[in-house]
């Protein structure tokens, strides 16, 4: 028989670091506090503070003659949002954001489904690289690249000409609203580039939510008599919905706020982001710029509230 020997309490590390780790072990809440304070300060003061200042600005107005800000509490600036030329901007942006979000979800779902259910090992790596790689290059470079692709003398026109499908492009461009003289200066072009640029933000959350759907739930649905379309409708889609909502929050809010893509690719009609940019810059109308910035925040708030009411987060 061997006997167990040795001390039962080990001598701790000496010095300050040793005593400090013992202290934190006994008081984990202090450690948590130390770790959370800097980011919370940053978030609270810099981020929320700035947001609050913005909100405040929107309740001021601008004096039409002097161009100076009138620091009196008023809803006049918000009323300006409702005049047709400004309201069109809001409508246009929201409509674009809705369409971009829907199209992104439809395109992203099969890709995410493949990655979550079938891709293994090497193919999973290739999937992640394929989805993330575009994020590594500059946003501006990508957009200018798209301008070249979509331009009248661009590769897309050339390719369609090779396929003898130029008539299709011409027919599309002849349509009102979505058409134009070329794709790069039409709403269609703006739409395509938005989808391309935001795609990773839609694919990754959907993939993450599908990854958590156990394979045997799909088998169980089939086992109980569910045809593939029913399995998708009653099992897969509801369980992927939190991911789709998360992705749509990205694509929707990013589209609502973007001012570069519609500037470079699209007709010259303004989007909210461009309006904010113009109002706070050249026009010097900070209150109106602030009021415009509040619009996406309110819309996102409404969107999340509706999503929650529809039970989008129940499967979370």
């Amino acid at each position, binding site marked *: 028989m061997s006997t167990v020997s040795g001390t039962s309490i080990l001598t701790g590390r000496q010095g300050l670091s040793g005593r400090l780790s013992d202290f934190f072990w006994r008081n984990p809440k202090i450690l948590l506090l130390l770790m959370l304070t800097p980011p919370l300060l940053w978030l609270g003061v810099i981020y929320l503070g700035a947001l609050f200042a913005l909100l405040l600005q929107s309740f001021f107005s601008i004096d039409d003659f002097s161009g100076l800000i009138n620091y009196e509490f008023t809803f006049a600036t918000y009323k300006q949002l409702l005049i047709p030329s400004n309201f069109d901007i809001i409508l246009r942006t929201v409509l674009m954001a809705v369409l971009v979000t829907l199209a992104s979800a439809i395109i992203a779902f099969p890709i995410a489904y493949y990655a979550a259910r079938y891709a293994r090992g090497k193919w999973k790596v290739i999937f992640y690289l394929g989805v993330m790689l575009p994020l590594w290059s500059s946003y501006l470079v990508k957009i200018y690249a798209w301008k070249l692709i979509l331009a009248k003398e661009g590769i897309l026109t050339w390719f369609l000409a090779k396929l003898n499908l130029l008539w299709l492009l011409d027919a599309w461009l002849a349509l009102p609203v979505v058409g134009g003289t070329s794709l790069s200066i039409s709403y269609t072009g703006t739409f395509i580039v938005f989808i391309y640029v935001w795609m990773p933000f839609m694919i990754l959350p959907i993939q993450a939510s599908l990854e958590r759907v156990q394979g045997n*739930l799909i*088998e169980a649905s*089939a*086992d*109980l008599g*569910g045809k593939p379309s029913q399995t998708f409708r009653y099992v897969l889609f509801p*369980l992927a919905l939190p991911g789709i909502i998360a992705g749509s929050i990205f694509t929707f809010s990013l589209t609502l706020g973007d001012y570069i893509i519609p500037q470079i690719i699209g007709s010259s009609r303004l989007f909210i982001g461009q309006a904010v940019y113009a109002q706070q810059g050249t026009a010097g109308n900070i209150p109106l710029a602030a009021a415009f910035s509040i619009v996406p925040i309110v819309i996102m708030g409404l969107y999340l509230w509706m999503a929650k009411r529809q039970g989008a987060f129940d499967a979370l």
Partner: protein
Amino acid sequence: MTAVLFQQVSRHFGAVRAVDSVDLAIAEGEFFAMLGPSGSGKTTCLRLMAGFEQPTGGHIEIFGETAEGVPPYRRNVNTVFQDYALFPHLSILENVAYGLMVKGVAKAERLKAAEEALAMVKLPGYGTRRPGQLSGGQRQRVALARALVNRPRVLLLDEPLGALDLKLREQMQEELKSLQKSLGITFVFVTHDQGEALSMADRIAVFSDGKIQQLGTPEDVYKRPKTRFVADFVGSSNVLPPDFVEGLGFGKHYASLRPEAIDLGDGPGRKQFSGRVTAASFLGAANRVTVEANGARVAAMLSASISVPAQGETITLSFLPQDLHMMDGTQ
């Protein structure tokens, strides 16, 4: 009538022969167990019946109809999954009614049927809860109700009791058995627990390496194991090496001898051998003693009325010749 028929069925995954030329015929209304260690092919056989896997060779019939190429949703066969696979976003009632919903049964009717099924598994009134709010045993019952509400012709159970604690497991074993008797549905049950298979099944198929080692009644499989693997896996039989068996005056074959067939001392008509005690433990109802005799290790269940022999002591043990069961193979 034959409920499930396998003719030379194989399911190979590349070089891995998960199921290899299996023949079996499960009768209607039978409680059939597929027993084996993990990786022995029993679950793949079950998945072949459910339609989640397609055979790479052979022929499968379910109630006389060819099953190859028939998707799971067109088979009147339902499965109780190992980890239950309840839909987390649906209430218990919606889970149970799922099969009827996808078949287009009217809402009032299917909810009523689901309530009845929940009552049958002794969970009435649990319908509004979510799967996450139930215990393992309750979830198991919901999975059972969800399958049975569809009135399947064959119910497949994939280690349904594996995640339950001992007491609950024993209770569920009895309930499953009586449920099967009252419904008359063919049950095909996969398990790695030989006690479960022995106590519940009408017939057992013992699997190893993708093949059926033995197919028979629980008594057959337990008392008359065909191979060393079966003797080893089913129950705690002693597997006696050929030399030892020959030394006792039998043929030179492997043989199995159950520990409870061995007694202390000698008697008329008994075969006796002596061995040195290497381990002894008191189990309450009996003493379990392991001896080393002629190079073989033999376990015996001895009456608890005799005190536990000491380690190192040499004792004489005996058994009746008819309790020794000769097996295939001399290697």
